[in-house]
């Protein structure tokens, strides 16, 4: 399944793998400063992933899911959103989280096994990452219905993986969102692999976007390695949602260039040749080529971005490594709004025992 050939499902690409524009670019993409902003976000995401993997490999971070090669999906989606919208990410959408104001330190804390990493200081209403695959899709419908009930012009944006589309959770959520015209956008990061299972073993459907047809909502595909196209398509879906026209399903076609997580070894089930064939499509080089053409992006500018990003992540890693664990009692303190007598007794016992 390459997914670009289904006649009833539109496909959008703005910048090709060689960095050349395909047709007219959306307005925001004609502004070099805006393109640089997107570029920096992609670089930050990839650098963050590299940093996190390095920390994991040296025993200083837990299992981590890199988004190598898929950075444009969640960065593009988040860049299309307004601050007051709500983002509901899967566990591979750190790019979008960083764009929304979640800090590298918070992300490292989360993946390092500290709940405070999900107590975002910005994006206070955004959801923490969702580990049980696809189970956050109904949350997006609930968030969207809260907006609708309060007559707020806000939208819930849920990012899920290709594997998630096999789950009833997602089918139920899309169906309900359609019935209620819930102001929501569902973005599938179709990176072609759900751990070891390729998307052809996930579904016999020609596209994942066409699952929208059964829910009675618009479904389309976008080049998920083209951050401009992702942002443009999600912006249109957000505008429809804000106008009261209901949800959309967007399938972003990308490729998982890395392992599923640091606990995975993709060489067990995937040929290196397949991976190599996808590298020329990856999102960062193509935007860099485009920037070189339209804005004279040069080596000096590139190096400055890389250095600034590296410095920022180095500071975040240092802060993470210097963060003391939470006091043991906090195991109890957030189970309920107020500690029930039963749990207060367990808390006392735990503290006396330690």
């Amino acid at each position: 399944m390459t997914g670009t050939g289904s006649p009833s499902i539109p496909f959008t690409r703005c910048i090709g793998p060689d960095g050349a524009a395909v047709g007219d670019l959306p307005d925001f993409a004609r502004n070099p400063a805006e393109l640089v902003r997107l570029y920096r976000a992609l670089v930050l995401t990839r650098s963050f992933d590299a940093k996190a993997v390095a920390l994991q490999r040296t025993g200083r971070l837990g299992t981590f899911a890199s988004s190598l090669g898929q950075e444009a999906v969640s960065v593009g989606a988040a860049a299309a959103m307004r601050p007051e919208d709500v983002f509901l990410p899967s566990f591979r959408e750190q790019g979008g989280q960083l764009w929304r104001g979640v800090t590298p330190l918070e992300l490292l804390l989360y993946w390092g096994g500290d709940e405070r990493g999900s107590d975002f200081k910005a994006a206070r209403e955004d959801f923490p990452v969702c580990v049980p695959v696809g189970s956050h899709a109904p949350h997006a419908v609930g968030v969207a219905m809260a907006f609708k009930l309060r007559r707020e012009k806000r939208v819930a944006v849920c990012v899920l993986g290709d594997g998630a589309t096999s789950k009833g959770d997602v089918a139920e959520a899309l169906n309900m969102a359609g019935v209620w015209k819930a102001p929501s956008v569902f973005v599938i990061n179709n990176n072609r692999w759900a751990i070891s299972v390729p998307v052809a073993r996930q579904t016999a459907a020609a596209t994942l976007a066409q699952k929208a047809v059964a829910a009675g909502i618009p479904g389309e595909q976008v080049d998920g390695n083209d951050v401009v196209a992702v942002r443009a398509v999600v912006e249109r879906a957000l505008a429809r949602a804000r106008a009261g026209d209901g949800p959309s399903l967007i399938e972003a076609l990308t490729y998982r260039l890395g392992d599923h997580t640091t606990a995975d070894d993709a060489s067990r089930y995937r040929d290196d040749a397949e991976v190599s064939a996808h590298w020329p499509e990856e999102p960062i080089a193509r935007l860099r080529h485009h920037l070189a053409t339209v804005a004279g992006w040069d080596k000096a500018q590139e190096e400055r971005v890389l250095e600034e990003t590296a410095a920022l992540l180095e500071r975040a890693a240092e802060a993470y490594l210097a963060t003391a664990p939470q006091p043991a009692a906090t195991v109890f303190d957030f189970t309920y709004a107020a500690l029930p007598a039963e749990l207060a007794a367990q808390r006392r016992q735990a503290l006396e025992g330690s």
Partner: protein
Amino acid sequence: MDELNLVQAVNRALARAMADDPRVVVLGEDVGRDGGVFRATDGLFARFGEDRVIDTPLAELAIAGVAVGMAAQGLRPVAEIQFTGFIYPTIDQLVNHASRLRTRTRGRLACPMVLRSPSGGGIHAPEHHSESPEAMLAHIPGLRVVIPSSPRRAYGLLLAAISDPDPVVFLEPTRLYRAVREPVADDGEALPLDRCFVLREGRDLTFVTWGAMVLETMAAAERLAGRGVEATVIDLATLHPLDHETIVESVRGTGRCVIVHEAPLSGGWGAEVAARLAEHALTALLAPVVRVAGYDTVMPLPRLEAHYMPGVERVLAAAERVLEFA
């Protein structure tokens, strides 16, 4: 003050909560125009409109999941699962999301939702309509599991559940929906969660029970009183978190305890109560703690359900057993 049965009391509590708090919304299958298959939401659609009384597609997982999303946004969703036989698809949402959203975000997000569902047997319902899954749910940290056993407690506990800042599963004993009427003041007064209700006090024996089994247990206590044995009857009401102080204190006084529940014996919530007594009241016990429960079988279809559900005679036989110990 109107005489209400339990389902009418639920209906009054829902209407009161919706009238008092615009954040309260009701959702579920057939809760709208139909007013719910048991009429628990009767009249709410006409009074509060389709924005706040939402008929959902037939999808239990998403009903719970949508409620999680609404609750995280500050609404107070009250979702109905038509029967507990259909509650199992919601357990993923309850375990992985509703009950831990506060913990995993360190209080940044919370989940003040209620999941209501008619529970238990005894109404000759079709297959999958009579189970008692409370112990599975009570095992989930971060969740409250509440089971009312009278119209007044249904009214007051449901109001408490709706205004509680954390998720509550509210299991309504189907058999009690129309079994008893009592005067219920529609005064908006909540009853306390996390507290047992001592329904009668006696020095000889403590019964611990909840839900529909309160009827059989109270009847057994009356019979015992007729021959001079005075029993305490404790209705757990909130199964989790468990108010074990009240139970332990009572059994320290009586020295004898019989636990009565409709759900299967093994791993039932009675086992938790018995364990607390073993840990905290052992030296006061004059007899083994005995459980009267459903059998470890599949809930039978209606023609055999009376054989499955503990009746007054089984409760009395258990009482005899513990009273025999000198």
